């Protein structure tokens, strides 16, 4: 049985991480994510885990990856400016295929921007923030319950696919307080890192010819090398063109080929929906409110909420486009995810953005006005 609590999104993320088995946090406090750091510093030592505050976000990301390579499930929390600093070492986690979870509680940017105000301006940075071709998993919560439940999913995906996962929250959800059920271990499915098997002499952490190779941990009999430079199956440097081709394709395909399994979406009143709102994160709350108001007015509005932003839930978006007369995409940015919808708009129906970048949430009336216009 779970525990019924009333708490903040940021706090629920900490509880979710601990429930997922995370025992290591390295970070640098930044508004509006600092409560994740504060609650982690209280909670982790209580469960035998460790909180360390690093000198900056570059060091935080490095420590996180180091801890994971040594066998601990590890996470950090930041906001836009910190995400920019973490981008470099995020690439080490991608290249080294080291699981970890990076929480970004988005605030208004660019630069220092509006530190306390919500935004969803990091959607494309989460996808492409670190240089070079790669794929990545990005999850977007829209409630305090999500902050707990999806955090467990984030760790599971991270271990299952040997990849960093970005938990892309925003100030609205991070600071929102509402009820949450903190599920107990018996209600949660936790993916634990598989141990390598066979002769340690033959252990090749980057040989994915028979499915994803299990990742060892420093200190185990399976000695291994992590290398941010291009490497072979053993983790030793290797600059051969065919090897580079293999590795880069693998880093992308190990995620893209499983996009359907990774995809999480939610459908609200979609069965007969003619006007579909495609939304995520804090803006999904505005969209759901607008949908409810539209239904009260007799308009057949529905919501397709995207929880897995990356890889893109291709099938679900295509289905929504196939059934809708018009699609509305509310975002707290100038239109970062709408491009993914437009890309799939084969019937060429109206795809309308509702965008707000003044540090204020999108009010349902703004979306409702677009729904009414589109329904005419």
């Amino acid at each position: 049985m779970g525990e019924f609590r009333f708490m903040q999104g940021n706090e629920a993320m900490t509880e979710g991480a601990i429930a997922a088995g995370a025992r290591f946090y390295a970070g640098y406090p930044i508004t509006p994510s600092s409560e994740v750091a504060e609650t982690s510093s209280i909670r982790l030592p209580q469960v035998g885990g460790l909180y360390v505050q690093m000198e900056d976000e570059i060091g935080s990301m490095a420590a996180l990856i180091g801890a994971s390579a040594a066998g601990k499930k590890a996470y950090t929390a930041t906001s836009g400016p910190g995400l920019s600093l973490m981008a470099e070492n995020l690439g080490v986690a991608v290249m080294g295929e080291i699981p970890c979870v990076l929480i970004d509680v988005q605030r208004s940017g660019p630069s220092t921007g509006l530190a306390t105000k919500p935004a969803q301006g990091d959607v494309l940075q989460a996808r492409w923030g670190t240089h070079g071709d790669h794929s990545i998993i990005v999850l977007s919560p829209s409630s305090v319950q999500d902050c707990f439940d999806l955090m467990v999913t984030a760790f599971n995906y991270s271990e299952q696919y040997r990849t960093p996962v970005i938990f892309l929250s925003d100030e609205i959800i991070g600071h929102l307080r509402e009820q949450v059920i903190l599920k107990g271990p018996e209600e949660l499915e936790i993916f634990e890192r598989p141990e390598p098997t066979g002769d340690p002499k033959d252990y090749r952490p980057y040989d994915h010819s028979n499915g994803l190779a299990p990742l060892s941990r420093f200190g185990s009999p399976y000695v291994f090398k992590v290398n941010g430079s291009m490497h072979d199956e053993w983790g030793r440097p290797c600059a051969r063109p065919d090897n580079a081709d293999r590795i880069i394709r693998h880093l992308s395909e190990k995620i893209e080929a499983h996009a359907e399994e990774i995809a999480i979406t939610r459908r609200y009143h979609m069965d007969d929906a003619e006007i579909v709102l495609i939304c995520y994160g804090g803006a999904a709350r505005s969209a759901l409110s607008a949908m409810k108001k539209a239904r009260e007015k007799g308009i057949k509005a529905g919501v397709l909420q995207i929880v897995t932003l990356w890889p893109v839930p291709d099938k679900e978006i295509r289905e929504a486009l196939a059934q809708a007369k018009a699609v509305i995409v509310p975002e707290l940015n100038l239109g970062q995810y709408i491009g993914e919808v437009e890309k799939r708009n084969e019937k060429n129906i109206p795809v309308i953005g509702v965008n707000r970048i003044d540090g204020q949430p999108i009010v349902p009336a703004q979306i409702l006005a677009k729904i009414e216009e589109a329904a005419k």
Partner: protein
Amino acid sequence: MIKDYLFEEKLPLFWCAGCGNGIVLQAILRNIDKRGFTRENIVITTGIGCWGKADDYVTTNSFHGTHGRALPFSTGIKLANPSLNVFTLMGDGDGITIGGNHLIHAARRNVDLVAIMVNNLNYGMTGGQYSGTTPKHAITKTSPYGHVENGFDVCKVVQAAGAPFVARGTVYDVVQLDRLISKAIDHKGFSFVEVISPCPTHFGRSNKLGDAPKMMQWIKDNTISREKAAGMTSDELQGKFVTGIFEEREQEDYSTAYQKVIDSLRGGENE
């Protein structure tokens, strides 16, 4: 056998003739071997640069991350599993230039690891540009008219930042280097050793210091023990490499201190 820690098929080392990196790597592996550490319980972390390639040659666990970030990677590794023996290898670019902030905080935080910074006074791998240790007036690829900045005295920086063990040696005096690394390994806490090493290909050539043997001679001629240096003025010490142990004191390391916090909260309760 020191060979157990070396990938023989990777030899010969890719470093230039006359480079000191091989000497330092050997000194580290000799000490590791002497203590009977195993490939399994060692992690060698490196940065980026010539010295950052050292992990290519070792058979132990290794982590080759990003330029300047070897220390925070090591911090995560050691704190996650305090039973590991963590060695962090950095050049002067890694250690005190791009990674200077990590260095001073690692010294302050006092995580129990050995950090060995090879200082060849310039960026070797990228072709000999100036670093944070390049001396004033030195010629490099990016100070063609003579360097206008001063270089760091890295040991002083690390000492001031609170590291409990700080020492400097050179690749000329291998006996001393062995002893310094040995003491660093035995010292619980953040143990820092700076090793002065020649880069005949770039720093040596740009500053007309001659070939590899001449550069070794140049290091020898400019090395002064800490004891001797004590009586000299700063003018007299200009351009000299002062060697020896600058700091050696007991101080509770991070993992021990944090474990006390955990124990106080959990009161003997098992997870």
